[in-house]
Structure formats: structure tokens, C-alpha cells
């Protein structure tokens, strides 16, 4: 817990040599990610059979979820859960920025909002991919992480709105033009498909499966990472913490073994389900 990790321990020599751990995510943020991925997996598993209802596996998957009747019920159930999580998140942001007057929520190095450095990072990063330059130094949130965040943010608004418009169509019909009643299904299913394809391939690889983090980046589960990882992945933030003398305040306990193992099981389960759904999606899309 980042609030409780404000340890008074002095940096013992052996800690300085690389055994130290630093907090990255708060318990609330990690919980948000857990709620996000479990509801998202649920929505994907109950939405895909509808999107690809003509595919060979659709009926089987619908049956597995609990039959054609249960599938809509669960889809709506997960939708409500995710909607609540989304609203809580938006409330938190405004509370942090406007009530607590926290700095760097909407701008600066610690913000999720994209800035000019992100644009430069994209090009520099890609130059590095093909051996044309140095690997750029990232700050607290790299551009692909910001993209993930905003993709989900935008996705929830778009998918959520179009979903509720279908759910309460007679009500929404009062405000929406006629063609929109048709368009909401197209929007809902295409944006949903994009989210599924993106999360289960790009996000999985970028965040978890790439060599630097393989097989899984545990920081989103444990909230802490090793000093080595911190330095390597986010050198700018690390340097800034050192320069501002705040590094010590981020010191955290190394996570408990059982919690790491538990997180691994949950994480692998989520990734496995995601990959299975990805394969089903691809077979239906190209089949």
C-alpha cells in the first residue's frame, strides 16, 4: 500500500545494491485493474458468441456460459459492474485534481494526458526498434501505456453508451435519430471487437509478454517493482525522484511470496482466457 510504505528505514547498503522495491500502483489502482479485467473477460466471453453467432463455436460457448438466456443476463451484469467502476474512477480523478488539489493529474510528467514528449517518444522508440537510435527514456507513463488507458477510457464511453442505447432502446429513441438505432449495434460490436483484439494481443504482449516483462508484469498485481526494473523501464521518473529527494518515500516492502504466487495464478488465468477468446475471435473472423 503506497500510503503505508512511507518507510522510515534508511537505505541500508544491501538495499542500495538493488534489492530495494518501490511502489508504483496504489491498492485502489490495482483493484481497479482487477475489476476491469475480470468484467472485461466476462463481457468478452458473453459478447463474442453474439458478435459471431453464426460461427461453429458460438452455440457451444453460449451453452458454456449458461445458455442463450443467461448470456444476456451476464453481459448486462458485467456491464453494470464495469460502469460502476468507470464512474468511481472518474469521481476519483476529479476528487484528486479538484478537491485534493493534487498536481500533475491533468498535465506534466505524472499525468495520463498525452504531451509533446510522447509524440517524440513514439518516433524515437520506433527508430530504436530498427536500430536507428537510442532507446528513449520514459517517465511514469510511457506513450503505449497512455494509449492503453485512453483506449479503454474511450472504449468504455463508446461501448457503454451504445450498449445502454440498445438495452433501453425505446427510451433512447426519444433523443437519437432513427439511423442511430441501427448504428449503435455496429458501433458496439466493432468497438468491442477492437477492444478484444487490442487487449488480448497488443496489451498482453506490450505489457506482459515482451522480453522485459515476460511472462507477466507483476507490478499491476503487487503494486511494487524492483529498483532495477524501475531504473530500466522508467529512467526519467527514477532520476526525477532522486533529484527531488522523493525516492525514499516510494520505498516499499518486497511483496509476500504467497501474494506473488496468487497473483501469478490469477494473471495467468486471465491471460489464458483472453488468448482462448482471441483465438476464437480470429477463427470466426477469418473462418
Amino acid at each position, binding site marked *: 500500500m503506497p500510503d503505508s510504505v512511507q518507510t522510515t528505514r534508511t537505505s541500508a547498503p544491501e538495499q542500495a545494491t538493488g534489492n530495494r522495491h518501490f511502489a508504483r500502483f496504489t491498492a485502489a489502482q490495482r483493484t481497479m485493474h482487477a475489476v476491469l479485467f475480470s468484467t472485461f473477460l466476462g463481457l468478452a466471453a458473453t459478447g463474442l458468441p453474439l458478435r459471431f*453467432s453464426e460461427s461453429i463455436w458460438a452455440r457451444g460457448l453460449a451453452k458454456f456460459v449458461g445458455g442463450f438466456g443467461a448470456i444476456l443476463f451476464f453481459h448486462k451484469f458485467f456491464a453494470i459492474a464495469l460502469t460502476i467502476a468507470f464512474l468511481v474512477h472518474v469521481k476519483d480523478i476529479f476528487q484528486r485534481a479538484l478537491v485534493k488539489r493534487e498536481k500533475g493529474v491533468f498535465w506534466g510528467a505524472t499525468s495520463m494526458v498525452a504531451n509533446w514528449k510522447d509524440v517524440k517518444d513514439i518516433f524515437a522508440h520506433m527508430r530504436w526498434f530498427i536500430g536507428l537510435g537510442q532507446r528513449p527514456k520514459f517517465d511514469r507513463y510511457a506513450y503505449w501505456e497512455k494509449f492503453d488507458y485512453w483506449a479503454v477510457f474511450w472504449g468504455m464511453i463508446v461501448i457503454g453508451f451504445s450498449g445502454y442505447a440498445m438495452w433501453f432502446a*425505446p427510451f433512447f429513441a426519444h433523443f437519437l435519430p*432513427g439511423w442511430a438505432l441501427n448504428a449503435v449495434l*455496429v458501433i458496439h460490436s466493432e468497438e468491442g471487437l477492437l477492444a478484444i483484439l487490442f487487449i488480448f494481443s497488443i496489451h498482453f504482449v506490450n505489457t506482459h509478454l515482451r522480453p522485459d516483462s515476460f511472462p507477466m508484469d507483476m507490478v499491476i498485481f503487487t503494486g511494487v517493482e524492483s529498483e532495477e526494473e524501475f531504473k530500466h523501464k522508467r529512467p526519467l521518473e527514477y532520476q526525477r525522484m532522486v533529484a527531488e529527494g522523493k525516492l525514499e518515500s516510494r520505498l516499499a516492502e518486497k511483496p509476500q511470496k504467497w501474494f506473488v504466487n496468487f497473483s501469478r495464478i490469477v494473471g495467468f488465468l486471465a491471460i489464458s482466457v483472453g488468448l482462448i477468446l482471441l483465438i476464437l475471435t480470429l477463427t470466426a473472423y477469418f473462418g
Partner: protein
Amino acid sequence: MLAPFATHAQTDCLSCHGDATIKDDSGHNIGVDGQKFSASIHGSLKCNDCHADIKDYPHPEHLAPVECSKCHSDEQDKLKGSVHADGKEHPCTSCHGDAHSIFPKADPRSAVYPLNVPATCGKCHGDSGEGRKHGLSSVLPNYMDSIHGFALSKEGLLVAANCQSCHGSHGILSHTNPASPTFKANIPKTCGSCHAKIDMDYEDGAHGKAIAAGKMKAPVCTDCHTAHAILQPTESAFRMQSTPICGSCHKDKLSTYRDTFHSQLGSLGGYVETARCWDCHGAHKILPASDPSSPIAPANLVVTCGRCHAGANASFVRYQPHANAHDRKLNPALYFVRLFMNLLLASTLTFFVIHTILWLVRARYDQIKKKSAEGDHHA
């Protein structure tokens, strides 16, 4: 002097033929159950009324085949023009059963009593019947599983359609024969002989009018309900199978229907509540939207949609159940929404797939380089 041989006396014949084990020289059983025979519809006849070549005793060793047509000439005439005209393959007894125990068709013991008809016809038109040798399909199992077969075999409903209700009995004609009750143009009348109200609706609808006008591509009862495996239309099995049947002619409507939520949820099996073609268009009296009495006429849409969608209102029914997202002229807004979504999906994924693959290669390359450098260092 010997009394003249009493040719009319069954008892005389039965004195020999009453022995159930009696056989002729080629080994055929020629015994007759006298009691059963006397109870049968022909029980009052003399043996040689049918076995007409017996005049005296002892009678010839080999007798001519019995000619039922001597009395039943009407039936014989009809049979001659029918698909069963070949008397060798289809003797009267093949349907009416054992010659010495024929009962009237209203008698439950009769092979042609309504409840027994399917089994009788099914001897040839079933899975292992002779009919298959002539390239005919096995229809008995389909019929037995149908709503008619069920009513007949499980409920014992004498009014339920059995084979001969639709095909006739002696004068059965091929469905390709315009005089046959199963000829396409005649099917509405054939089914309508029981389902009178539905026939009236059908005749008033677009399909009925088309058939009446000689447009034979239009469907008749059997095109949607099938001929033998007729299901209860409210059953999910029927609701699952019939949308593609409508779609086999209305291809563009099926493909646009497939794009809707109605189809998506409905395709998952058994979900009887989602709208299929006839839930909106009606089943038998199908009319174009321009007809004010059609359920899809603009003025009726709120009621039609409202049957499933509580709270359906005038704005709600502007939804187009057959909108085509690929038709720019017909549905421009939907077309561009789809195009935008497709482009968004394609461009986002294309960029990130390339980005991720390059990244993977580079990161792995660095990792290997670093490892080998460490290896060198340790060495």
C-alpha cells in the same frame, strides 16, 4: 349318388384348410383361420367367390390369383393410374393385409384404420422398406416425429393427418402430376381441407396470390413446414430452421437480418423470443408494407414491435430491421458509421501489430546480446 360338392360351404374347405400347418407342394402355407375369416369383412362370402376357378372337388393343384377387381373395380381403376399401378409389386394385400382377415377401414383391426396407416405405408416407405430401392426417401420416421405423427400415435387423434389424408389411397399420384393433391399448386387446398382458416389467410397473402397467378417459385405450405417432418411452429426447433427457409428466396433480407441483434441472439439456439421473419411479417397472410393491413405497414409498427418491446413508440420504430450497412445509398449514415469503425479497427491494429512485432524483435535481440555479454564476462 354323391351329393353335389357344396361350393359355398366354408366348412367344407376348412375341413382341409382349417389346419394351420397345411402346405402346398411348393411349401407355402395354405391354412386359413376360419374364425378370423368369418369375422372379417368378407366373412359372409363363399371361398370360391374369390377363388373363382374352384368349381368342384378335388380342385386344381394350382389356382389363379384372386382378382379383387371383380368386386372392387372402382379401386382397381384408380390404382391402375397411380404410382402403385404395378400389381405384382403392389398387390391389394400389401396395404390391406392378410387376404383372409381384411376389416373395414373404420375397424381398429384394419391395416388401413387411420391409426394403422403410417405403419402400413411405412412397411415400404420407412428406413428398411422397398421404397428405398426405387430411390424414394424414408419418410416414416419424419412423419412419426411430426406434429401429425405425434397427434396420431400419442394422442390417437383420428382427425390427425395420416399418409392418405394428403396422398389419397388407391389413386396416389406423383407430386409432379398436376392432378395430385401433393402437386405444388394443390398443396394449399390439400392442407386447407383441415386447416381452412390458414388456407384463407394464405390465399389472401402475397405467396398465395403468387401461386394462384402461376408463379410457382412462391412457397406453399410444405416449403416452410416441410411435407412430413412438420413441427409445432412455436417450438424452438422450428423457429431455428425456418428463417433460412425464408432466406433461400429472400437472400438480401436474410443477410441484412443476420446483421441484427434479432438474428445474433436467435442464432444461439432455442431463444424463441427473438423476432424471426414471421413474427413481424406474419406467417400466412404476408402483405407488403404498402398494404394498410400488413403488420409492417408504418401505421402498425408500434403495435407489431410492441408485441416484444414494451414501451415501443413512434421514434423507436424508426429502427430498420433490414438496414444494410454496406449500402451507401440506402443507409448513408449507417454506411459511414460502419466505415469509420472498420477503419478505426484496421488502422489501430495495423499500427500496433507492426509496432509490437518490431519491439519484440528488438527487445529479444538486446536481451540475447546482454546475456552473451554477461556470459563472456563470467568466462
